[in-house]
């Protein structure tokens, strides 16, 4: 997976950005070369012969000077005018207007320090957001706490997630693939690990994913897992985490209904493996320093029961 946009735009919107960016870079290189050429020319100019009265040259040529200044200014204005037209055109393409009252296809909410995505059918997922490739989705960007910024360099413009202000963007991937995203507005201790992935699926894959995510959590079988399910509520995990089909309905932490189906924990800081889950349960502050999950103070037995339970949440 290549990060960043410049060489790999993967949607019509970012293609527009990339081509404008290329124009700007070429223009900048040209202007810089011009200034550098002037500097070099003045460096290599032969030093004036001794005795020649110094320091008078420019004072003498007022009319010529005014003309040169006017030309220079006009050229800058014209070039910038052209750039402005290109800018407005690209903006219209990227932020295509929407019908008033259009409902979003996806609502993404930034939390310190993880991303939640909500689908119209009620499915909620964290950090690994599936979309159907080739469809342009309207995404609403919200924040639950401080200002974050939703950014998938290859697929879409940035949009700040500001509390109390809905931002809308178009999100689209030309073809199936995994596209890295990250929070791009400083948002506190773990701003660095507020990653997410957009997973663009074929239509069939997307609908089967959506269907499986819509299932409530599987009822735990086996004594350890059942004990874990009981502990989950007893230890107040449910105050922060939701697990569909159980009494756990908290919204301050990631929805764990299908936590096993995800590749990463802690918004990208670690892969989702039995070991990292165990660390997350016994010492969340070591797993992700400063994160908003307090140490639950579990005994080893409780931790392994909870881990067994989480291990059933496919």
């Amino acid at each position, binding site marked *: 997976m290549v990060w960043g946009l410049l060489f790999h735009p993967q949607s019509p919107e970012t293609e527009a950005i990339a081509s404008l960016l290329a124009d700007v870079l070429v223009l900048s290189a040209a202007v810089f070369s011009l*200034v550098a050429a002037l500097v070099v020319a003045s460096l290599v100019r032969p030093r004036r012969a001794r005795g020649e009265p110094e*320091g008078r040259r420019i004072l003498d040529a007022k009319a010529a*000077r005014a003309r040169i*200044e006017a030309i220079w200014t006009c050229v800058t204005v014209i070039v*910038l005018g052209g750039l402005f037209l290109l800018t407005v055109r690209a903006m219209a393409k990227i932020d295509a207007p929407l019908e008033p009252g259009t409902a979003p296809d996806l609502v993404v909410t930034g939390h310190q320090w993880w991303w939640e995505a909500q689908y119209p059918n009620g499915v909620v997922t964290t950090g690994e957001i599936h979309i159907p490739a080739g469809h342009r989705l309207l995404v609403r960007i919200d924040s639950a706490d401080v200002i974050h910024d939703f950014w998938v360099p290859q697929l879409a413009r940035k949009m700040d997630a*500001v509390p109390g202000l809905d931002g809308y963007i178009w999100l689209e991937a030309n073809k199936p693939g995994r596209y890295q995203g990250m929070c791009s507005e*400083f948002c506190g201790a773990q701003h660095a690990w507020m990653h997410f992935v957009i997973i663009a699926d074929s239509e069939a894959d997307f609908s089967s994913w959506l269907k499986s995510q819509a299932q409530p959590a599987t009822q735990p079988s086996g004594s350890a897992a059942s004990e874990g399910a009981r502990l989950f509520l007893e230890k107040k995990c449910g105050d922060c985490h939701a697990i569909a089909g159980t009494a756990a309905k908290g919204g301050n932490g990631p929805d764990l209904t299908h936590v096993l189906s995800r590749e990463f924990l802690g918004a990208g800081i670690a892969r989702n493996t039995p070991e990292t889950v165990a660390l997350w349960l016994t010492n969340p502050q070591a797993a992700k320093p400063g994160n908003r999950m307090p140490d639950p103070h579990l005994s080893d037995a409780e931790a392994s029961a909870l881990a067994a339970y989480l291990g059933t949440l496919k």
Partner: protein
Amino acid sequence: MSVGNWITRVDHKHVGLFYILSALAFFLVGGMEAMALRAQLAMPNLKLLTPDQYNQIFTMHGTTMIFLVVTPVLIGFGIYLVPLMIGASEMVFPRLNALSFWLQLAGGLLLYLSFATGQAPAAGWFSYAPLSEKPFSPGKGSDYWAFALLLISAAMIIAAINLAVTVATARAPGMTMRRVPLFVWMTFVNSLMIVFALPVLDASLVMLLADRLLHARFFDAAHGGSPLLWQHYFWIFGHPQVYIMILPAFGMISEIIPVFSRNAIFGYTSAALSTVAIAFLSYGVWVHHMFAVALGTTFISVFAAASMLIAVPTGVKIFNWAATMLGGSLRLTTSMLFAVAFLLEFTIGGLSGVAFATVPVDWELTDTYFVVAHIHYVLFGGTIFALFAATYYWFPKMTGRMLDEKLGRLHFWLVVIGFNGTFFVHHILGLLGMPRRIYTYGDIPWWGPLNLISTVSAAVLVLGILLFCTNLVVSLQLGAVSGDDPWDAWTLEWAASSPPARNNFAEIPVVRSRRPLWDLKHPDAADWLLEETPVQGGD
């Protein structure tokens, strides 16, 4: 000298030097902070700093460099030079002048005192609400930050009023506003900008403190406040502030390039007027810091147009300097080398600025390392380079001794290589998607090597700066004695002794043109002879 003796100094030259020296001290502190940040980022997944430490240090680095280094050092040069350049014996309000410095220093110390509470500010130098609000920044750091900035802004406003009044009322006979050196012009405009911009910062700081300490709700969306209120207020101050940190540097360059090109500035009037244009425009572009907020495309494109417009007067300046050099014959002193490098580095910073005015590019690159590159090309490649040029240029006037040119050249090359090595790669990192202000990153193609290049180059840069400090100390003792006018320059400060006497001038030379000392040295070819003949006259 006893402490009491120091505190009661009101001579503008002492106050100016206090400003400059305290800024230098904070520059070293801010530089050490920067090195800590670069060390932590040298490779993926390093753990030299905890996330919380990293966030405190980058916040302190930005706040220090902006409020304790760049802004005050430019004010300090203004306080030192403006009276000399306009042929005055002192600032108009000498005691206020001293007060402004001590307030500034108190602000700096208060900011650093926050470390003693165990929690320095950690919300970034623009401290966006609601992150800076109590629930998300419970430590005392943000309170210290806000109070320190209130002190500093009071200092800035006092100094600015003083400078503006001095320029307006204390000019020597014959020194009309059409004849003052461009550094004076730009300091004058700068002072007016400070007077209009800083109160807006004060208002936002007071709102923040009210929220934090008095349970107000200015920025709390859940209770009818708005986080965007902070952004609008802060950037209405913040964008003019960006120019407050560069205009006097433009002024310095406008003094130095002509002298070392042996040529009067090309287009004095357009250089002065473009400054005024920049000042006006800078109040109408603040939203370009907020393009990634959902503000609506029409609204945003107005600010995009205004932001692009600023490139016009800035381009005029670049052209003025380049044309002055082109028409002259250069003397490549260390001071001039830095001035020439300024021209190139600042052009790069200006061009990346235009890139950000191109809204969709901003939608991609804002808050990435591309911004980090941009601000450092403008503030370091721009202002700090100009300050190095200015130090080599005016050190003889301030101390009576020359800075060593051999050390100077070494300093120059280390800084040029270190600076570009550190910051040029940040453009590429931004294009590769690296967000700014992250305390670490995973193993992502190219990020590791590019960050390593940046960190190693930063060490070279630090070496260059240490060499500069060595040069200051050594030359102060052993430097060649400079005499009053070592550069064969044209403005009035060179008519005073080096260092100037308490009242600056025994006798003020007659001012009949923009280059009174040229006139004095070349009575047959004096500028005023030309200026008084309209056909060929100056502008």
